[in-house]
């Protein structure tokens, strides 16, 4: 018999009792998903800024770079290329994948209030590796796209199709592997800034 047949037969021979499907479960949640998102993302070491509308993105990006004494260069994935970038003169845009010290913009189609998490389905115009290649990720999300729970995001995506890679990102990359003490920027971004568009 093949390993597959052997293993399945072993399971069937030993399976003893019938077990009912678990009841449905709903995690406790605060009333306002955006407020919860800000609170949890901040606790996870992300820097959160509220902006009024899409036109403010380029200026906010330029300010975030300036505040950290970083060069005014940002890597822009295809799905963010249509933003009004010309409103921030002096901000250079790169289309190539970012390196470990570079800043990159990312559009998050969904957020999760329960944990302050960004949800990124991979797509032709939204390469998944950018979330891990960059040193500084600047995420953009609409307030109305911040849902309460991970299950809500899964339901929205399942309504169409799940992507090959679905990344849930909460705060910058980190490690506690040396003396169980938190260090940010292990392999992925050292800094995560989130711009929430309120309109």
């Amino acid at each position, binding site marked *: 018999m093949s390993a597959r047949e052997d293993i399945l037969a072993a399971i069937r021979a030993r399976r003893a009792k019938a077990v009912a499907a678990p009841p449905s479960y709903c995690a406790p949640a605060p009333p306002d998903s955006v407020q919860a998102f800000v609170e949890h993302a901040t606790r996870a070491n992300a820097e959160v800024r509220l902006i009024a509308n899409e036109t403010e993105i380029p200026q906010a990006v330029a300010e975030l770079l300036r505040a950290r004494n970083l060069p005014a260069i940002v890597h822009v994935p295809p799905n963010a290329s249509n933003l009004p970038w010309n409103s921030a003169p002096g901000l250079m845009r790169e289309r190539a994948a970012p390196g470990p010290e570079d800043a990159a913009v990312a559009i998050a189609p969904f957020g999760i209030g329960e944990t302050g998490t960004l949800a990124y389905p991979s797509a032709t115009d939204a390469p998944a590796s950018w979330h891990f290649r960059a040193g500084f990720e600047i995420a953009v999300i609409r307030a109305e796209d911040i849902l309460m729970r991970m299950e809500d995001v899964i339901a929205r995506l399942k309504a169409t199709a799940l992507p090959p890679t679905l990344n849930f990102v909460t705060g910058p990359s980190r490690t506690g592997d040396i*003396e169980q003490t938190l260090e940010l920027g292990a392999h992925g971004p050292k800094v995560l800034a989130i711009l929430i568009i309120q309109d």
Partner: protein
Amino acid sequence: MTLDPRAFREAGRAALHDPSLRIALGRLKTHFALGRARAVERYGDWEALREQGRAIRDYALAHLDTLLEEFERNVVARGGQVHWARDAKEAREIVLRILREAGAKSVTKGKSMVSEEIALNPYLDANGVEPVETDLGEYIVQLRREPPSHIIAPAFHLNKEDVAKTFREAHTALDPDRPLVERTELVAEARALLRARFESADAGITGANFLTAEEGAAVLVTNEGNGDLTRLLPKTHIVLTGLEKVVANLEHAAVLLRLLTRSATGQDISSYVTVMNGPRAPDESDGPQNFHVVLVDNGRTRLLGTDAEEVLRCIRCAACLNHCPIYAAVGGHTYGATYTGPIGAALNPGLMGVGVAHRHPNASTFCGRCAEVCPVKIPLPTIMRHWRAREYASGLAPKSMTAGLGAWAFFAKRPALYRFAAGIVACALKFLARNGRVHSLPLLHNWFLVRDFPAPQGKTFHALWTARQ
């Protein structure tokens, strides 16, 4: 360093006298246990969540065959391949075959306990494929040629000075006079070196925290982002995991995630949670072109339907290690096995055989803390007791214990004699006591090294009880 579960006592004795290990083990309480307690308190109804987690895992184990078939169907439908391995040898051979077909010379690896369990790295090395561990802790222990000492913190036994020394010895191309004192400097050095390895790897191997049948997806949790670079940059991605990791759907995995990260590191969620659902789409610019899942049995199905079955619920959070007085005293390497602490004590006799791992279920005070903190309610002490009974039945129990139990049974079966003897012992202890405490007894020298014993105050329990009636 070779792994030998039979040498538990000798290794434990050495560990107890290792001053640097004592410092590292001190961090269990101050870091892991405290972080978990705070996260559990923040959550609210933790007990309801645990009960849901238990129900989800029990449902999955009761439907393991159909869920695995459904998982396989959906992986294939999305362009991936599923491989089944009965044991460690088969699993190693499958992985090597996939790597050979991909023409891979170097492979980056995300943290995977199953990879340790099947001893994959030495096998790949011997067959001309270079494995590069990318989880920082796993990278450090790989450089030191040590096994990981903790399920979620592989370099838990080390202090930063040890890591600095390891990096200086391994990274010989770098300036020998560079500063390497702060943790930040150590992390930055590993980040730079490993990024180059990610970019040049031919294939990537990760584990999976959950497999979801309905979607044919593997769910991976990391904090560093190394698992994602391992999946996304090379051409071929292999998920290597135990077959018991399957659950019905992503919604079930989302519930278990809430339990996992809070129990493990005290985080509400880890930095990265990734749903890996097949290879890249044809029009995508990154992601793997080939996607494989290797399902490893290696003794797991043998536990179904036995008294130890509930151990298969485990989601590998390591909370039981972090709250275990034995693990806190001897550390992970003492176990000489991939799985350590209470979960090792409950799992290893099943996976490795009672004859090999029978010392592990004996390494417990039965304080029960492990079962209290287990997010999926595994009755760990009960399962350890099951293995102890099997050990005794197999004649593997130490002679001193069998003799002692035999002597006790002789008296216990003769109540009058028992009462008489107990009275004599009580009198003798009273006589031997100094200031109301017994400080030493023949044959029990080691026991009394770090403790003493209150002297009996008067009559035996039996005598008091009879008087009361």
